[in-house]
């Protein structure tokens, strides 16, 4: 953690969301590897991702991914266009707004099956 500079919150959030997404990626590689053990083992294992609790955790993952992606674009823009530094604070707010705007419909699509609504046509909400 470094203090006293305007980018500190964007730096801290970028690091935390990045490490969170990496942690999920490592878990995800393991769960996908189970497909090499046949349909029964794979389907029995990945059913956990459809439960309510893991759906909520997936939302945290998606929010992290959205923020990390948009803040990454903000960083690259200023890296290669130094005058953009003047707008770094405004761009940080834009990143947060864009993350929230895209996150809201995502919450609906991911959580609807928990309440028995299937926006995609077919869905399931198994008990843990």
């Amino acid at each position: 953690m470094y203090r006293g500079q305007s980018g500190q919150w964007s730096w801290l959030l970028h690091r935390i969301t990045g490490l969170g997404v990496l942690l999920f990626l490592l878990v995800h590689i393991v769960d996908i590897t189970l497909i090499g053990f046949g349909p029964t083992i794979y389907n029995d294992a990945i059913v956990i991702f459809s439960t309510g609790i893991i759906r909520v955790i997936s939302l945290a993952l998606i929010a992290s991914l959205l923020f990390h992606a948009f803040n990454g674009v903000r960083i690259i823009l200023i890296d290669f266009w130094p005058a953009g530094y003047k707008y770094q604070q405004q761009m940080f707010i834009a990143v947060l707004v864009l993350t929230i705007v895209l996150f809201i419909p995502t919450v609906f699509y991911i959580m609807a099956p928990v309440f028995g609504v299937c926006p995609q046509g077919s869905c399931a909400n198994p008990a843990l």
Partner: protein
Amino acid sequence: MATETQTQTPQRTITRYGAYTKPAKGANGWETFSWYFFRVSGVALLVIALAHVFLMHISTDVSQTVYDFVAARYANPFWRVYDLVLLTLALFHGLNGLRIACEDYIQSRGWRLTVLSALFFIALTFWLMGSMTIIMFQPNHTLAQSIMSLFGR
């Protein structure tokens, strides 16, 4: 004692917008490559990873992404290449980030070497696990059977 805990790792400086500054020209080729790799892979992942999340969680509910779904998808080699690119870029972008976080917080040279070696081992293991699964998958064959069939068994 203080000098013994120093390492050759370049001192990183943070910009006022919350990113690391580009290594100075000729400072360290590897660190310069790392700096560019974050940005190039990041732009690619913005599209590839977000599209992956959209396809697996939004346009199809995650509960439908079962074995037969994967089998149908992997009948098209495009999705195997797609997943292989996603796996490779995401894993090395992420672990390179973890490497920098570790270098920021671990002062002792011995621990740094231990942790960096562990990260290298994790990178290799997870990349092999993931890429073997993506490349070797055959419907209703286990990975072991697919590997054995390479040797005519």
